[in-house]
């Protein structure tokens, strides 16, 4: 009986994307708050049921908790509906979340109905199965809700690369190298899609594809090619902050000056989805590779501290964060620091991210040692007597971005053996026999 109005609600009162009364929104905004109550309660039920095997009192409590969860579900659905109806939210994400909530409430109710049967005879498997479905449904519905609030990429945006690749495999739309795909679309992604995307579609504007963007929203087109001053989108994001129509609304982070400059230039120059370069806008490549944390070297810390208190080579920390790694500093003892001395640092090898061997007595023999320093990002070998013999051993240093060989005897042949070092961005060959190669090396530098 109860389920009918619940399931029928979307047909009785349609979500038409128009905002309605303020009181609805006022109450509705408690939905994100209230919704956590049934979520927690539902999670509690299976725990209580399992724990109830040992302590029957807990199992008795499960029934009560389930009842509470059901009541919470009803309240959340009502508030959620008020929120969506009141604020005029619509879109596939909203619809999914709505049905998720309704189905979840129904499932909870069924659980509540089947539980007494199961309590009488444990052979009745209907309740456990329903409870499992309820849990899965809840996770899905909750995720839909989260995507509406925070945007669908909220969970993955800071994920490590491998996870990102896995996640994007399904929807891998080869990212073109157009200015739009590289620089403009990511702005929408970051600042706009949580309200104008797959999840919610406020003001009937979707910005998740180029075509949808150009179709505009309820006030017509938002981008007018070549006419930034007529483009509603640019107008709304450049209003004074706090203006009623300012976008992004609701205190979400505004666009940066740079982003606005890019959008303006992009519209000015035709708002094309394919153009790869815009006149007057130069964007430097993101040069920073996120630092990979080194392991825990706290056991070696006493020795590192001891080194600091006596003259000699030292291990300095990159920053206050130990996982940023160590720097081998030999500036105090350049004359007496040779291959043997470097070899003594092998036990610190995985924790050292930079070695400064400039002007030391190091020779080619040290390439073997250096190859053990797997976390190295920078090697300074300038003004040493290395000739590059064995330099290919460094090819295993996957994180090496900086290699300074200035003032050494390195030849162009040995320099060429570094080609396989893909991560390398800065290689310095000033004042070496290899210098004729320098223009090529320069070209590899992003400066």
């Amino acid at each position, binding site marked *: 009986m109860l389920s009918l109005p619940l399931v029928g609600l979307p047909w009785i009162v349609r979500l038409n994307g128009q905002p309605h009364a303020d009181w609805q929104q006022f109450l509705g905004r408690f939905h994100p708050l209230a919704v956590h109550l049934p979520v927690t309660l539902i999670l509690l039920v299976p725990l209580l049921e399992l724990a109830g095997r040992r302590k029957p009192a807990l199992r008795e409590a499960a029934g009560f908790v389930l009842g509470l969860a059901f009541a919470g579900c009803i309240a959340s659905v009502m508030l959620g509906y008020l929120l969506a109806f009141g604020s005029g939210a619509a879109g596939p994400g909203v619809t999914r979340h709505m049905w998720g909530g309704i189905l979840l409430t129904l499932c909870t109710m069924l659980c509540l109905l089947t539980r007494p049967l199961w309590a009488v005879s444990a052979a009745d498997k209907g309740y456990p199965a329903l409870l499992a479905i309820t849990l899965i449904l809840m996770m899905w519905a909750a995720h839909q809700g989260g995507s509406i609030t925070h945007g669908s990429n909220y969970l993955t945006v800071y994920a490590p690369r491998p996870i990102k690749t896995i996640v994007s495999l399904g929807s891998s739309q080869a990212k073109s190298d157009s200015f739009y795909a590289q620089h403009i679309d990511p702005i929408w992604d970051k600042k706009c899609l949580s309200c104008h995307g797959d999840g919610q579609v406020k003001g009937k504007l979707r910005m998740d594809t180029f075509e949808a963007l150009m179709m505009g929203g309820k006030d017509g087109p938002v981008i007018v090619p070549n006419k930034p001053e007529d483009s509603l989108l640019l107008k709304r994001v450049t209003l004074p902050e706090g203006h009623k129509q300012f976008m992004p609304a609701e205190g979400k982070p505004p666009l940066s000056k740079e982003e606005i400059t890019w959008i303006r230039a992009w519209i000015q120059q035709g708002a094309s989805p394919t153009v790869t370069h815009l006149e007057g806008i*130069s964007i430097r490549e993101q040069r920073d590779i996120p630092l990979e944390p080194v392991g825990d070297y706290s056991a070696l810390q006493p020795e590192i501290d001891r080194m600091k208190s006596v003259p000699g080579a030292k291990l300095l920390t990159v920053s206050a964060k130990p996982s940023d790694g160590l720097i081998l500093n030999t500036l105090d003892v350049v004359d007496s620091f040779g291959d043997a001395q470097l070899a003594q640092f092998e036990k610190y090898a995985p924790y050292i991210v930079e070695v400064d061997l*400039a002007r030391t007595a190091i020779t080619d023999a040290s390439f073997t040692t250096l190859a053990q320093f797997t976390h190295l990002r920078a090697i300074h070998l300038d003004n040493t007597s290395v000739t590059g013999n064995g330099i290919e051993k460094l090819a295993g240093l996957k994180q090496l971005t900086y290699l300074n060989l200035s003032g050494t005897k390195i030849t162009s042949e040995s320099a060429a053996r570094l080609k396989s070092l893909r991560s390398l961005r800065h290689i310095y060959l000033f004042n070496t026999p290899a210098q004729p190669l320098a223009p090529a090396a320069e070209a590899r530098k992003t*400066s």
Partner: protein
Amino acid sequence: MKQHPLCTDTEHELDVSRLALPAEVLQEWASLQTRRHFLGRAGKVMGWAALAGLVGDRSLQTHASSPKTPAGAPGPDELKLPHFAPKAKRAIYLFMSGGPPQLDMWDYKPNLAAQYDKDIPDSVRGAQQVTGMTAGQARFPVAPSHWDFKRYGQTGTYVSDLLPYTSKLVDDLTIIKSTNTDAINHEPAIMLMNTGNMNAGKPCLGSWLAYGLGSMNDNLPTFLVLQTKLNPKQDNQPVSSRLWGSGFLSSEYAGVSLRSAGDPVLYIGNPDGVDSATRRQMLDAVNQINRETYEEVGDPETNSRIAQYEMAYRMQTSVPELADFSKEPQTTWDLYGEEAKEPGTFAYNCLMARRMAERGVRFTQVYKRGWDVHGNVVGTLPQLCGEVDRGCYALVTDLKQRGLLDDTLVIWGGEFGRTVYSQGGLSRENYGRDHHPRCFTTWMTGGGVRPGISYGETDDYSYNIVKDPVPVRDFNATILHCLGIDHNKLTYKFQGLDQKLTGTTPANVVTGLLA
């Protein structure tokens, strides 16, 4: 260890009861600890406690700190610095004392030519109080720059004809046209720029860096200052050692100024008849006496003295090696010019700054005086630019080709800018420019900053800033950021305040300048 004569630290007092003594002796000792004894001691302890409260907590920290930091302040290890992985490990600050005229060098205002000799509109100048040097002037006529500007580099940045060398660098520079200061006269302005405060007594940028980041090479000072020889034809404002002073920080963090003529450090060489071995012997003996004193008294200042003697001894080798340019190849002289062979010239100091960067000096500040062009801009400015232009170019280019620019921050700037209106007579041939704090141009390059940009904009008269102002405190906060320091966290308790370089007015790192 013997007790310090002033020490009433009962916790670390010799505990007689634990000594291996006959039981009756111990008992006698215990019985001596009478009530009167207790009261007598307690009174004294209360007095010391009150004194400790009066002198503040610094004197108490002294005991806890490592012997390397004599003032009782936390050393770099305890400070937990850098706060985050830095882009730059070291910095070189080319300081143009006197206030270079931005309008004739960097801030191109082509529209001013049409405004020649017209008064600047009141709306531009507003109610600003000008200096006593021009306050009496009947009018403030616009003096357009005498020099042409051309576009350079891929970025097409406008630079004046006065800078034929530096203009080649524009694609690597981060030009800040909206630097502005609160002070209109030299001394307060130069103090503000260097120490973050117009009043003397605060540590300068270099001292904060030395204090916070520590040394990379124990054979050389962490913070070195190079002064350029005076050109008597220029209007030289004084530059005093408080600009590189350490203020309330321990004096070991003060800049060490190398002399521009003769030995870079006085008495660096051994006197006649004293060879290195004799010197070593003498130091060993002195050190032994000092160590005994430390054992006896436990004052960390003694250890710091030992460290200073040792540093001086090592500098006897490291400084001559640093100042020995004989092994520099011809390419160096082709780059810096023959002038760089003459000690004390700006070019020489630039080359020296590069050699210091190679040897791990944390902060080098090069001073060039004479930019105070109140009159005869047309006569003096080409001279000034001629002196520094090639040096700046050579230094940046040299650091870049040697791979040092990746982790070195180079900063160029003065204490304020100069006015658009002429001080004194204005003619087609010549003019003067007064102090102007509201906007001036500085530049940075290297580790941490974004190359090839011009940041901030001034109005048509280069008088007021219309976009993205960078006040001195933000400028300094940004420099610290490049070196891995959160300017709000590098503090030192003094006079009841957590003192910091950027002062008490909220300062921000200018993210638009960052790479």
